[in-house]
């Protein structure tokens, strides 16, 4: 097997930038079950959209009602059409690099509440 030369590996690595794996969720909607969606829920939790409920410590791979609400709030905060689905606009915004501060408004996240005007 011919190993890719070092520069190729580096190039590939840059394409594997953080969150690019979320592309596989495109067009997922309520009721769907996609392997790895728990990772996307962790992303939504990090930015203040999805609290970890007290009883279960891990997120599931199911696109449930709670996640749909989180997607709608995300779309609202990022000025996207409120479809409640992981449409192309929403997925490409999710994959876009961003600031690490939470978007949460009037909810606790990283100890910061924010108030939108």
């Amino acid at each position, binding site marked *: 097997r011919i190993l890719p030369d070092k520069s190729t590996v580096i190039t590939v*690595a*840059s394409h*594997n*930038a*953080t*969150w*690019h794996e979320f592309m596989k969720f495109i067009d997922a909607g309520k009721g769907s079950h996609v392997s790895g969606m728990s990772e996307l829920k962790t992303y939504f939790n990090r*930015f203040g959209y999805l609290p970890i409920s007290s009883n279960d410590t891990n997120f599931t791979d199911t696109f449930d009602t709670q996640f749909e609400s989180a997607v709608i709030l995300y779309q*609202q*905060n*990022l*000025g996207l059409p409120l479809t409640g689905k992981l449409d192309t606009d929403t997925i490409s*915004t999710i994959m*876009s*690099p*961003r*600031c*690490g*501060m939470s*978007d949460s*408004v*009037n909810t606790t996240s*990283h100890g*910061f*509440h*924010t*108030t*939108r*005007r």
Partner: protein
Amino acid sequence: YAYFSGKPRWVNSTPMTLTYAFSPSDMIDYLSSSEIRMVFGRAFSRWASVIPVNFTETGNYLSADIRIGFYRGDHGDGEPFDGVLGVLAHAFSPENGRLHLDEAETWAVDFDTVKSKVAVDLESVATHEIGHVLGLAHTSVKEAVMYPSLSPRTKKVDLKIDDVEGVQALYGSNPNFKFSSLLESENSSNHA
């Protein structure tokens, strides 16, 4: 526009002067310190032009109001960075003053000399994070500096009405600032 809970803001003397400094040990070496200082100088000036606040660089990092550094991965503040792209930077609400950038990014001062597809504009991110340092949270207005995301090889440094209204509600208006000039520039960019 949005604020952090309790609308925290800086409340030191009037007229207000905030000092800023760069970490003596946590910087990047492929951009010169003069380039980085010039970029942050422009970013601070943009906010200073709309509010009655002066920003002054100091060499004394430990006593500065605003402390800037580049860090990789877990750097001890509970918000680890995540490698190429993803989270680019973060800053803390007033009066904390910490402003951290992800060292793993390819930071660019201009895209003519940096060809990488994952290059990120340092001035755009600096201007955004200074907004957090002053007390602004994220906005849903896509054109505004305080919008959470920024694509690689994109420059977004001009404060928009949403940014200015938000920060002036915290600190008042710079007496030399005229909203009309901002409106003109927004109208011309909208027409464009």
